[in-house]
């Protein structure tokens, strides 16, 4: 478990790049605070993974064993074709691009304060030029926007 979602995203990227079989999930109910993600890894690899995170200056706040199933992030995407524009929704976040230029024209939905910040940074830029939500986002809404953005990349 980490301080915030952006640290989870960094740790996830780093551990996946290093080949560790990690997954991002919802925390167990007893340690939820409001806007959380955790990284799940095989218990047997605890020392190796902690050493790797420590070396990268990304040590977690705490490590807890879990036995009950954890909540999985949403993995359903809804797409709406407006003719000249394409919108993808992941969880509570929506992103819309102009089909001809691949320019991001709107971002809507969400409830966490990084949503307007991400929208400000991304709208008006093409998918290739815009900063990735995973680079600027700090919350689950930011993470959901990253998933919608990735889905859009797959489709365009």
């Amino acid at each position, binding site marked *: 478990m980490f301080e915030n979602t952006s640290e989870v995203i960094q740790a996830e990227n780093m551990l996946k790049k290093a080949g560790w079989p990690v997954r991002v999930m919802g925390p167990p109910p007893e340690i939820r605070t409001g806007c959380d993600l955790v990284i799940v890894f095989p218990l047997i690899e605890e020392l190796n993974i902690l050493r790797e995170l420590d070396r990268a200056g990304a040590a977690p706040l705490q490590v807890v064993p879990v036995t009950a199933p954890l909540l999985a992030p949403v993995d359903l995407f809804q797409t709406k074709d407006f003719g000249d524009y394409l919108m993808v929704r992941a969880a509570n976040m929506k992103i819309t691009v102009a089909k001809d230029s691949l320019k991001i024209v*709107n971002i809507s939905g969400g409830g966490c304060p990084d949503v307007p910040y991400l929208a400000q940074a991304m709208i008006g830029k093409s998918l290739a030029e815009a900063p990735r939500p995973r680079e600027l986002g700090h919350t689950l809404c930011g993470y959901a926007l990253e998933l919608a953005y990735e889905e859009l990349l797959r489709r365009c």
Partner: protein
Amino acid sequence: MLGIVGTVPDPEFPLVHGRPRLVGDHIRIDGRSIAVQRCTPALLAAALSASETMGGPDIYAFLVGDIGRGDGSRKLYRFLTEHLPEFDIRVLAFHYLQPDVDWHARVLFATHAMPRQPILIADAGFMYAAKMSGQSGSYDFFTPDVGELAFLADELAPHPFYTRGFVLHQDNKVPDLIRQAHAHGNAATHLLVKGATDFIAHEGRVMATVAHPCLDAMEAIGGTGDSLTGLLAALCGAGFGRIDAAVLAAQANRWAGSLAAPTPATQMVELIDKIPQALSSLLLDQPDQKRIEHGGS
């Protein structure tokens, strides 16, 4: 007085509170200027525009900069906990704040010490925190979109990000989701569900729907849900009964959209400009809409 609580996307923006003004496409408050784009500034702009059209209510805003790290939200939560009891506010709308169960509980507790119990409206991050804390029933209104309604209906999801697929698939069964959310104690007494059709519900029962005019492009435009919540708050603050306020807000938001002739690339400020025209036409056309004193449903 209507109180509006939320964040602006600027890490340098300090905690400010006071009476805001809408000047062109910016909100001015305490010597500072905020662009009206989406989220809390859009809610505030819609409420200010409606208030100016109707000749009230007065609006007081509590704002802080936060870009998702939660530091600004926590500063604002602390301020509200310490100072809300000093404010006589008729309607209090909470909006884009970092969801935090512990701080949510403290702020809700502080509202109980206010000179009169305000009508409480929660949207966005604060609605997520209210649901997660199990205190949804303390609120008069939640204003979810259909995806967020699925989150409210899913008794296990702590955030819309974890809404289970089988619940999300019920997009076309809004009345069922409303009933589920209410049955699990995860709905405010009233819901205004934003979507292709807007649903207004009380205690789990659909009381009204608004579906006209229907503009597909509105779904893509960031801020259309925020403006709807702003209109609802302003109408409740002006003394309309809760159901009447919700119906009028949904109608005014749709007509403002229609007057702007939007595409999916339209920006929110273009719709805000049309609120006075949309709202005044509706108020003229529906003279039987009743303003009732605080407490009407």
